[in-house]
């Protein structure tokens, strides 16, 4: 029998000799199950996020497509964007609550700190957008390229550095790919950038989910 045969039957109660192969199978099975149950970013969540970004960015792209001169997204498109983001936020909260239920200690304190730091970074992106508008930047910049690409460049860079500091190369690499996508997308102009970001981000999310399933199974 191979060392990591998941089908091996092992009784959970005490007593009797435990064969080393059975012990290795039980250890492997328990570790995988625990990691899956405590995972804050399960592949299914990433797969669910793919249509969310496609709908959110797609709605904006449809509303700005063909604008000459560029005036920015319509209120309806913004409502779709925030509606889908709120729906996804609720799903994220449910997943996080389930994964962290009963877990206490240093990591929950660290998560709170992370949430505050990233909220500050994210907010600063939109404060900066206000500054661009105030300084007289064109609508193509203030309501096009900046809101489509800058949040992902700035938040993605912060995430890439943070994950690299933790030696979490998988997540750091993924964050760098998001930053690269946003930088490239910014060159496509204020209309097309929304479509590029929607399709590119959805593709990256699907690829990330697939790689996680492949790496951890």
């Amino acid at each position, binding site marked *: 029998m191979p*060392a990591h045969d998941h089908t091996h039957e*092992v*009784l*959970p*109660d*005490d*007593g009797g*000799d*435990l*064969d*080393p*192969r059975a*012990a*290795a199978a*039980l*250890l492997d099975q*328990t*570790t995988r*199950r*625990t*990691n899956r*149950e*405590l995972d804050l970013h399960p592949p299914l969540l990433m797969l669910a996020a793919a249509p969310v970004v496609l709908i959110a960015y797609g709605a904006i792209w449809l509303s700005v497509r063909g604008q000459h001169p560029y005036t920015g997204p319509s209120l309806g498109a913004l409502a779709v964007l925030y509606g889908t983001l709120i729906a996804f936020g609720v799903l994220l909260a449910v997943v996080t609550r389930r994964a962290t*239920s*009963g*877990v*206490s*200690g*240093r*990591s*929950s304190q660290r998560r709170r700190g992370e949430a505050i730091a990233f909220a500050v970074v994210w907010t600063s992106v939109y404060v900066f957008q206000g500054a661009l508008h105030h300084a007289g930047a064109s609508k193509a910049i203030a309501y096009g390229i900046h809101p489509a690409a800058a949040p992902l460049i700035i938040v993605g860079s912060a995430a890439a550095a943070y994950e690299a500091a933790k030696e979490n190369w998988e997540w750091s690499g993924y964050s760098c790919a998001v930053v690269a996508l946003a930088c490239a997308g910014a060159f496509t102009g204020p209309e097309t950038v929304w479509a590029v970001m929607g399709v590119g981000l959805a593709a990256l999310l699907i690829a990330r989910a697939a790689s996680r399933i492949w790496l951890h199974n």
Partner: protein
Amino acid sequence: MSAQELDPLIHVPARLRIVATLAALPEGDALSFPRLQDMIGLTPGNLITHLRKLEEAGYIDTEKTGNGSASRTSVALTRAGRSAFETYTEALRGLLGDL
């Protein structure tokens, strides 16, 4: 190397699952008793018995907070427990390599 050299306190299905579950948590984190029970699938009495053995060996720490119905027990692997688990997995790996 033989199976007898594996830590007998960990080399029992129920306790191996308990220790492996707690070892999957980042260092400094604890798991509540109900969540651990839910993940391991043991009866409360059975789980308490195994936890007591591990606590006596200094492998885990249990902490009770609150009183009465609001009381909450959390379980964490100690540094000694984590080290014993690492030694156990290394020994197991060596043993499987020999087989």
